[in-house]
């Protein structure tokens, strides 16, 4: 073995990044994350209906989903943050990754979504996207402030 361990790691990361498995991990990460919140949403409805056992099973599964989501990220982070493309590292680096996503959301994603909703006549949904846009703007600002301090 002539390679140094550090570069062997880098090679492995590059290989993962190019693989179909990386895309699958990314898909699993999003799906599991969204599933957690679907469970929590349905648990609230079950609570209201007095379906205690359903509600408590939904909440238990949602709680377990935490491990499934984070477990996907354990692999993804070996390559990079799949959303920002920035390598996962120390907090000062990670904050850049988050600022990038929040910024993209408030400057591009939500304004475009709001525009489409208005064009299609869903003005309340448009207002919801506007609201998200501003929340994202606030998040990006607060993150940047912390990172500047």
């Amino acid at each position, binding site marked *: 073995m002539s390679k140094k361990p550090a570069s062997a790691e880098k090679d492995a990361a590059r290989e993962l990044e190019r693989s179909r498995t990386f895309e699958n991990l990314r898909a699993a990460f999003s799906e599991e994350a969204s599933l957690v919140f679907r469970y929590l949403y349905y648990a*609230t*409805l079950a*609570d*209201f*209906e*007095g*379906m*205690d*056992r359903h509600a408590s099973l939904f909440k238990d599964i949602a709680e377990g989903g935490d491990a499934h989501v984070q477990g996907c990220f354990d692999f993804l982070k070996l390559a990079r943050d799949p959303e920002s493309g920035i390598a996962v590292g120390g907090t000062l680096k990670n904050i850049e990754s988050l600022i990038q996503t929040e910024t993209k959301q408030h400057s591009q994603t939500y304004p475009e979504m709001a525009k489409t909703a208005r064009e299609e*006549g*869903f*003005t*309340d949904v448009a*207002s*919801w996207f*506007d*609201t*998200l846009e*501003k*929340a994202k*703007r*606030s998040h990006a600002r607060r993150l940047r402030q912390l990172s500047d301090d």
Partner: protein
Amino acid sequence: MRAGSGSSPMTERYTAEDIVVLSGLEAVRKSPWMYIGSVSAAGAHQLLHELVHNSVDEALAGFCTKVVVTLGPDFCSVEDDGRGIPTETHPTEGISACEVVLTKLHSGSKFTRSPDRFSSGLHGVGLSCVNALSQWLKVDIWRGGNAYEQSYKRGAPDMPLKTLGAAAGQGTRIAFWPDLGIFKTFSGFLQDDCGRFLEELSFLIPGVEFVLVVEPEHASISFKTGAGIAGLHPRLNPKARPLFADLLKVRASDETLSFQAVLQWTAERESTISSYVNCVNTVHGGTHVSAFRAGLTRAIDRIMAETGKRGGPDDHIEVDEATEGLTAVLDLKLVHPNFEGQTKSRLTNADISETIENAAADQILDALRKNPRIAAVVTDKILQVRSARIAARRAAEKIYFQQADWRVNEEVYKEQFGARSKNWHESAVWITDKELLKAHADMCKQGKDALALDVCCGSGVVGASFKGRVKKVTGLDLTPEMVGLAKTRLDEVRQGNVYNIPFQNDTFDLVCTREVLHLLPYPERPVSEIFRVLKPGGQFIVGQILPFGEDDAAWMYRVFKKKQPLIFNMFQEEDFRRMLAGGGFVDLEMKEMNVWESIDVWIDSYETTALARHEIRQLFAHAPAEAKAIHPFKISPTGEISDLWRWCIFSVRKPL
């Protein structure tokens, strides 16, 4: 004893062998709140409740007919005529069974699950827990022809159980005083609280007498009734108007349980269900309440089908539709109750569901079939609930549908605000808040001969606040009912649509509106209509509730949209300024005013479904930290919610 009248054989055997020992007491003194919830004065009252429940268990088992609670200046005692705590030496502990019960945590016959049929004590930690947290405690027992006594200090016995000699009768008397080192704010038991507690028990165990004696006056009050839980029912919601006079009843029993319920529907929206398991108030419900609600819904679904009031075979009634306005008391006596947590607020036994659900379904259906008049008022009420629900759900859909050709469906607004007009002024605090109205009027810069228009005027209170400052106030509203209301306040009122204001260009010196534009899709269109009817130099005053900032807006959006499905915009200050400027207005001034609003009143509304009300309460209970950081609200210990609303009142001018 009705509770004990099930089929399983009851044993008279209740001796030292029946007491099982699980662990010691130090833990209780170390972390008392884990066992009794808190070390406040309420915690001290919990000690008394535990003692009373111990006697109640004897009553439930059918061995006790009278419980006397005596409140003195420096003592409190609970005496019953039950079998007396066993005095024999415990087979494995080598001390009297009485001492085991009073000093060992998780001891008590409840853990043997045999002789006592229904029991309520604090999962078996009851008596020992009280003893551990008492400065002193003295127990007297009359049993098997003898009298016994023993005293304790902070849970430790002063001496072994002492036999005092021959004595007639049976029973137990425990006197104690809470340890003031633990209950630092305790300053005596409250007579009213104790009285209410005993009276409630007398309804739950009819025939057993509960007496409260207050020393040294020796004043006594006795609670004993045959009324049963029907006697508790009127206290649930005394202000609610019942839809029919007689209570409906449900009963069920098998070898493990005895269940009864009384119920009635009222004109209210909320449902109030009070539930007890072995005389303990299960404030968070549980399986017994769920099963009852499910059975009741089945009965309603069936009677609606039988009376032709259901849409079709698949058009089933939902639980929250069937229970809207329901008031019910549920009383379950159960052999082995399992609760969530030490406070026993929620029952978790699953195997009881079928019995209770079937009994509720069959008996309520039977009662409704036999009383067609009651069936008619109840099913009519549910039809009303359904149509309100459907209207709420369809409101948004209808509007979307109409969006295609840029028109707004007036019917949706007319339907909703027409229904609300009946109690419009009671439907929220802000509507008639005098300071808020004055804040709008104070923005007025027009002369005495000005003509004013109140757009979407509702009952006309905003326009009326300009009276005396201007010559004439005209109102405009879409809803005929609101037009009628406004006519009592304004000089002239027209019915019409704000997207197409029925006045010529340049007619008014002042236009005002309040908390309206968020309800309108494409709000820039009514804004430009307002611009059109204003004379050059005319003033537009508009009040709107806005989020405190970017970080509470998403949360507020959800709260407001759940309350009112017709909300189309959650404006933030910058949006609102941009919209007014975009409409051609100039000279913008803004005034802020924060007003507390009762969320409970606000959501008790035609357009807010029971589910939405539940969700709104949850949104306040679990509000995100970033919203709470900038948006004040209060939740009282009894669950009432007050929210601080940030009113922004804008004044702009049409350029000359």
